[in-house]
């Protein structure tokens, strides 16, 4: 089943974000996600490939080549157009939440 953008969990959101800038292999995705989350989210292979499988089934990412690099078999993944749309929608939703949070905080009485 294709997930609605509002149902995207943080690791999935970070994977899509990592792939937004270009094609990456599995280990690179793990590194980017760790950097993007400031070390808060560390993906492990079982979780990563489960997420990639779901995203591929939903048509949000596709395999974009494979090869051997430094003795390691690599498969490269890239965001599809649908994936970019879902990521943009989710980013807008989160940004709106942030705006609302800042606006509400600004209305907070001083000293309260």
């Amino acid at each position, binding site marked *: 089943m294709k997930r609605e953008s509002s149902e995207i969990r943080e690791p999935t959101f970070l994977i899509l974000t990592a792939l937004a800038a270009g094609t990456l292999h599995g280990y690179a995705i793990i590194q980017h996600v760790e950097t993007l989350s400031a070390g808060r989210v560390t993906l*492990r*292979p*079982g*979780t*990563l*490939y489960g997420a990639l499988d779901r995203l591929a089934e939903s048509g949000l990412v596709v395999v974009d080549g*494979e090869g051997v690099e430094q003795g390691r*078999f690599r*498969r490269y993944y890239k965001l599809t157009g649908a994936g970019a749309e879902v990521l943009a929608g989710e980013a807008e939703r989160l940004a709106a939440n942030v705006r609302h949070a800042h606006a509400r905080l600004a209305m907070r009485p001083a000293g309260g």
Partner: protein
Amino acid sequence: MTTYEQRCRVLLKAFPDQYRTERGDEIVGVLLDTGRAEQRWPSLRTAADLVAGGLRVRARLTSQGRSSVAVIDGLRLAALVGLCVQAAFAVAMVSHRAHDGRLFYAPSNAWSTGALDVLAAAWVVAFVLVVADRSRLAIIPAVLASTWSVILVVSNFVGNLDGAVTSVILLGVEITLLGVVPTLALLVASTRRSRTSGRPSVLWLAALVGLTALFSVLHTGIGTSRNGGRQLSWPSSGGLVSFLSWVCLAALLAMLLASLFDPRFGVAVIVVALPIIVYQVGLLVTVDSKPAWPVVVAISAFATTAAIAVSTAISLRHLRLD
């Protein structure tokens, strides 16, 4: 290949063969990248993550397709297991009659004694037909045997209205339900086409449960015979009872574990365990049939209830994936 890589590849066996062939080298590559140079064992978290990931892939691959198909296949598996138990009971009862002379949970008269052969033959034929993937044909002997079982157990109950419910009557109710419930499952399953008809991989399970039932009934037969058929005896040397209880639990547990990979087993556990619960709870609550092993029965009842609850949760989760 390093020791670390070898151990990673062992953990990858949690994934289905085909998935491992396609993705194994890629995942191992990531594991080597994320591991330390001197590392010999994958960390506990990584190991747990890989096993959980493998189980999720298995569940997803199994439940691809419609939920109703998985439910129908589960009912078919339940029918297979239930009819296997019935066939084993039937063989045991025939052997029991050799030294007792009647069906132990039916009224002691000529017609019930004669009914045994018909009943036994019907259950065995129904089981063989299901194994031979002739499920629709198996409905005829299964429905006949179910009806006959209900008549026998009801007539025994009516004949004992003056007395309390005995463990013999309870066992009769359980045996009857163990036949009636799978027969109903067979009836429902026969209305839909199975996607795994004749799949032999489930037969080992049916054989395990059947073997357990066979030993149980042979043991029960001996106990019943000692008490004139009125009350089941729970022998002072409880080794066998205890052993069989654990074998039954092991069979349920095996199905439960299998349900992690395959929702059909979850559906089957629910269907098969319901009659067992009725018997176990009945044993615990009836006044005159307190077994000498209430703790064993209580543990068994609790484990069976837990098995049903867990199976329901797992099955629902599997089926929601579609």
